[in-house]
C-alpha cells in the first residue's frame, strides 16, 4: 500500500434525466486499497462503481485516472479506450457466456485483451488454481454452482491482470460459507497487487476485508477513509454486561450512573454501556464490584461494528 492515486472522483454528480442518483462525491482510490462501498439498496453504490469503472460519465465533476503517470490525471471516461486493460469489472450478476466452458470463457475474454497467448494461459492457470476451478475447467459455465460461477466471473475480470478490480455485490445470493470463500479469494487477489473496489451489503465481510470504506447514503458519500478512522469518528467503544438472574442489576446500574457514561441500554440480561471514557468507566465499575463483593457473569468490551456505524449514519439522516 504505497498510497499512489489510481482513480479520483472530484465533485462528481450523476443524474439520469431529472433523477439525481449521486451528488458531490469526492473519492480517492489508491493503489493496493481494498475499498468497500457500503450503502442501502438504491443509495447509488452501483452508480458510483460504474463511474469508477468508467462505464458512466459523470453529469458534473470529473473522474480522473492516474494510470498513465506520464500523462498526469486524465478523464477516465474519455480515455477509457486506452486504459480498459487496466480495469476489471465484475458486475452484480455474472457476466460470462453460460454456454461456454470455464476455460473457453477465460480464453475468450483473455484473448480479446490482445495479450500474448502464453501470458493468457499462465494467467488462466493461476486463476483456475486460485479459484479452485481447475477440475471444472471443461464444464459449461451454466452447470457450475453459484459460488463457482461467481468465482468464474471474478476470474474473467482478472484474466488480463488489471490494476484495479471493481466488484458489485460479489457475495450477493451466496451462502455464508461461499461469501467467506469469495472474500478470502479477493484478499488473495489484493495481495497480488490488484486494487479492489467492492460494493456490498455484507458489511461484516467488508469490515474484515477492506482497509478503506466509503459509506453511500441517499446519493451522498457520507464517510470515507480507513475503517478505524471512521469507526472513531462515528462511534465510541462500548461494553456489555451479561447478567445472570442472581446478579444485582439495579445496584450495577446505580454504580454505572456514578461513572462517566453517555447512556445505558437495558436489554433484560444485557446492559449495553456507552461510556465517555471506557478505561475510567470499566476500572471504576470493576473496583466497585470488588469492593461491594457483587457478582458479574460477563463483561464484554467491544469496538463498534461497521453495521453499527452505518446504522448511526443512516439513522441520523432520518
Amino acid at each position: 500500500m504505497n498510497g499512489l492515486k489510481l482513480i479520483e472522483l472530484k465533485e462528481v454528480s450523476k443524474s439520469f434525466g431529472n433523477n439525481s442518483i449521486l451528488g458531490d462525491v469526492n473519492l480517492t482510490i489508491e493503489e493496493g486499497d481494498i475499498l468497500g462501498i457500503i450503502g442501502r439498496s438504491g443509495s447509488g453504490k452501483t452508480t458510483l462503481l460504474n463511474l469508477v469503472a468508467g462505464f458512466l460519465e459523470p453529469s458534473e465533476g470529473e473522474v480522473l485516472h492516474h494510470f498513465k503517470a506520464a500523462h498526469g490525471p486524465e478523464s477516465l471516461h474519455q480515455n477509457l479506450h486506452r486504459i480498459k486493460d487496466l480495469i476489471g469489472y465484475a458486475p452484480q450478476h455474472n457476466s460470462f457466456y453460460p454456454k461456454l466452458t470455464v476455460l473457453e470463457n477465460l480464453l475468450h475474454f483473455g484473448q480479446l485483451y490482445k495479450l500474448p497467448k502464453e501470458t493468457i494461459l499462465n494467467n488462466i492457470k493461476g486463476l483456475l488454481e486460485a479459484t479452485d476451478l481447475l477440475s471444472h475447467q471443461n464444464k459449461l459455465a451454466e452447470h457450475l454452482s453459484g459460488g463457482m460461477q461467481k468465482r468464474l466471473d471474478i476470474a474473467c475480470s482478472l484474466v488480463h491482470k488489471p490494476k484495479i478490480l471493481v466488484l458489485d455485490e460479489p457475495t450477493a445470493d451466496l451462502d455464508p460459507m461461499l461469501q467467506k470463500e469469495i472474500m478470502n479469494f479477493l484478499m488473495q487477489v489484493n495481495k497480488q497487487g490488484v486494487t479492489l473496489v467492492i460494493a456490498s451489503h455484507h458489511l461484516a465481510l467488508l469490515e474484515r476485508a477492506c482497509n478503506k470504506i466509503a459509506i453511500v447514503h441517499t446519493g451522498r458519500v457520507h464517510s470515507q477513509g480507513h475503517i478505524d478512522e471512521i469507526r472513531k469518528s462515528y462511534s465510541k467503544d462500548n461494553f456489555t454486561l451479561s447478567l445472570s438472574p442472581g446478579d444485582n442489576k439495579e445496584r450495577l446500574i446505580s454504580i454505572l450512573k456514578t461513572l462517566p457514561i453517555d447512556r445505558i441500554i437495558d436489554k433484560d440480561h444485557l446492559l449495553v454501556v456507552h461510556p465517555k471514557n471506557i478505561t475510567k468507566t470499566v476500572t471504576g465499575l470493576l473496583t466497585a464490584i470488588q469492593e461491594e463483593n457483587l457478582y458479574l457473569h460477563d463483561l464484554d468490551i467491544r469496538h463498534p461494528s461497521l453495521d453499527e456505524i452505518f446504522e448511526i449514519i443512516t439513522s441520523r439522516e432520518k
Partner: protein
Amino acid sequence: MKSIWLLIKKNLRLLVRSKTSALVIFFAPLLIMLLLGLSYDTSSSYGLNIGVYAPAFSEDVESLITSLQEQEFKIIKYETTVDDCVEDIKAGYVHTCLSIPESLQVEDNQQKEVTFYVDPSKINLVWMIQENLGSKFNLKSQEISQGLTSGILTSVADAKTQLSEESTELNGVKEKSSAASASALSVSQQLGALDLNLPASTYNPQALTTIKSSLSLEVENSLVEVDDAREAVEAANITNDAQILNSLNDIETKLEKVDALLSGAVVSATNSTNTSSNSTASESLSSILTLLEQDLTATQNKLTAASQAVISSSSSLSSASQAMQESVGALDNVQQGLGQIKTTLESQKVTDANVISSPLITRIEPVAPESTYLNYLFPALLVLVVMFSSLLLGTTLVMMEKNSPAFFRNYFLPLRKGTFVISTFFTTLLITLVQVVIILGVSMVFLKESIFYMLPVAGVLLLSSSVFSFMGMGIGYAFKSEETGTLASISTGSLLLFVSGVVLPIESISPLVRKITALNPFVISESIIREVFLFNADISAVWVEVASLIGYAVGLFAIILVVEYLVHKHFISGFMKHRHLKHRQQEKRDKNNV
C-alpha cells in the same frame, strides 16, 4: 372473471409499455393494410413493358400496339430483330416480347402466328402476360375471324343473288328449249309423214335401148349440123350489120335444121318403135311413157307435198333455231354468271375452317433454355433461403449478444464497437457460406450445372446475405426481446418476399409501390442470380445491380454502427434506470416490512 380481466389488463399494459411491441401490434396491421392497399389498388393498369417486334409496323401492327397501350402497357418497338428484345428480357428491361407478322390479314389458309417471348423463370409473370395479352389477342383474332366470316357470307350472298338471276335466265332457256323441242317434234312428224318413195313402175329396157340408139344417131346428126353452123359462123366474115343478120339467119337456119333433125330423131325413134315387129315393145314404150307420165304426176304430187312440208318444217326449224340461238345466248349468260360466282367464291382465299375460326395463333417462346421449374425457381429459392437465414441469424446473434450476461462485460473489452458488429456480420456470413456451399453442391447434382456457373452465384448470394444480415442485425438492435426480434425478422422477410414477384407478379401492383419494390434487395439479388444462372450472363452485365447490393450493404453497415452506438447508450441508461428503480422499490418494501 375478475382475475381474467386483471390478467388482460396486465397483458395490455405490458404490451403498451413495450414501445416496439406496441408499435408492431397496433401499427403493423395498419401498415400492412396501407401497403397492400397501395400495392394492389391498380384497377386495370399493369406495369408491363412489352417489346414489340414486327418486320414492318403496318397499320395492323400499329392498331394492335394502340390497343395494348390503351391497357397502359408500355410498348417498346424493336425494328431490327427480335433478338434485341429477347436480350432486354434477360436484362429485365422488358417483360415480354411479341413478334408480330407484318400484316394480320389472313389471305391464304395459313394462320398468322404471334410469338410471345417470355422468361419462364418468372412463372407468375408468364401467367399474367398470357392472361392479359392472350385475351387481347383473342379479341383481335375474333375481330379478324369476324372479318373473314363476313367476307365469306358476302360472297355467298352475292352468289345467291347471281344464282337467282341465272335461275330466271335458265327458266327462259328451258321454255325456249321446250318450244324448240316441240317444233322439232312437229317437223319430225311432218317429215315422217312425207312419202318420198319412187313409183314402183318398170320400163322395157330393149325399147329404151332402141330409142336411145335412134336418138343417138339423130343427135350425132344434129351435132354435125351444129358443127356446120359453127363453121358457117366462123367462115362468115362479118363486117357489118347486114352480114351479121345474114349470118344469124344462116345460123338460125342451121339450128332449125338441128331442131328438125332432133324432131326427126324423136319421130324416128317413135317410128322405129312403131315399126317394130314386136308389138309388145310398141306397147311397152307407150305404156312406159304413160306409166312414166303417171309416175311423174305422182312424183310431182309427192314433191309438191314434200315441198310444202319442207316449207313448213323450214319455218318451224327456223323458229326452233332462233329459240335455240336465244337459249345458247341465255346459257352463255348463265355460264358467265356462274363464272362470276365461281370467281367471287374463288376470291375467298381463306377456306380452312380452322383458320377462319382462329386466324391468329399465339406461341410462347421461352427465352431461357427449356428446363424444369426447379431451374426457373432456383434463383428465387436461393435468395429466399439466404434472405431468411441471414435475417434471422443477424437478429438472433445480436439478440443473443444483447441478452447475454456477458454483454455488460463486453463494454470493458478493449475493442471498438464496430468490431462486434463486424464479428456478428462475419458470423452470419460464415454460416450462410456453409449453407450456400451445401445448397449449391446439392443443386449441382440435381440441376447438373457446372461449378463455373455456381461460383458467381455463390458470390452474389454472399453479397445478398451481407445485406440481409445487416438488416437482421438492425432489427436485433431495435427490438428488446428475442421473440419480437425474430417475429420482426420473419415479418420483414415475408414483406420483402411478398413484394418480390415470387408470390405475386410485381408488375400487377401499383406503379408507385412497384418503383419502391424495384429497390427491394430480394428483387435485385434474384434478378442478378437469374441472369447469371439462367442466362449465363457475365457479372459485368449486372454490375449496376451488384453495385446496388454493395451500396445497400455499406449503407446498412453505417446505419448499424450508428444504431449500435445509440442503442448501447440507451441500453446503459435503461439498465441503470431499471436497476435504480428496482432498488428503490426493494427499499420501500424493506421499510414497509420493518
